């Protein structure tokens, strides 16, 4: 309980920046919402892989059902977005700030890359697939989380 006297210095050290990669430092609400997001994100990815293979190999045989099959990962993707949205809305305020800064870096990097690379392509750079900026966004998002967590969590120093 809060009224029981305990050593206040026992748990004062900031966790290292990577502590939030796990769930130990999360609140119970964040843990639950993150689990929910992870579930939908994994379901989306699995459905996308399955639908891609099915459409590629049996697309003609499936006929109109292929459209339904392609709609499944879209619906699961929307569920993943909604669950991430809910996670963010109810997240611990420091975690929300870290995510906001990471999203800004991820989205901004993806947008700049997408627009700028067209120019580089004209100069002779290899042509990229339209989904490649997604990789830039995800990597920049991860880097953004690392940078923001280091900034607010102090890199493990006391």
């Amino acid at each position, binding site marked *: 309980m809060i009224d029981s006297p*305990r050593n*206040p210095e*026992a*748990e004062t*050290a900031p*966790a290292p920046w990577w502590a939030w990669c796990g769930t130990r430092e999360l*609140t119970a609400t964040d843990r639950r919402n993150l689990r929910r997001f992870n579930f939908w994100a994994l379901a989306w990815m699995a459905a996308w892989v399955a639908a891609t293979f099915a459409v590629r190999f049996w697309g003609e045989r499936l006929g109109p059902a292929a459209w339904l099959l392609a709609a499944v990962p879209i619906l699961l993707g929307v569920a993943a977005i909604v669950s991430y949205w809910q996670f963010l809305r109810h997240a611990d305020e420091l975690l929300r700030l870290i995510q906001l800064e990471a999203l800004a870096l991820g989205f901004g990097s993806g947008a700049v890359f997408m627009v700028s690379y067209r120019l580089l392509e004209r100069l002779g750079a290899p042509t990229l697939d339209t989904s490649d900026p997604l990789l830039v966004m995800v990597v920049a998002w991860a880097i953004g989380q690392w940078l923001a967590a280091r900034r*607010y969590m102090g890199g493990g120093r006391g």
Partner: protein
Amino acid sequence: MKNRLRVLRAERAWSQAEVAERLGVSRQTINAVETGRYDPSLPLAFGLARLFAHPIEEIFDPDGAGPRAEDPAG
């Protein structure tokens, strides 16, 4: 923004985890506020004020001149 959280917490022998649990935030949030790395939201600042039974301005020093209660000049 400087604050007196560490002192107030020590007076009551509360851990950061206990304060965090009481306010529904993570321990890292309390730690970041305490060390001045992060300025809390208004609801969290009010929550801290209520928890420690002190007005907000006695806990937080927006001028960053240092903890008011520890200033012998008053």
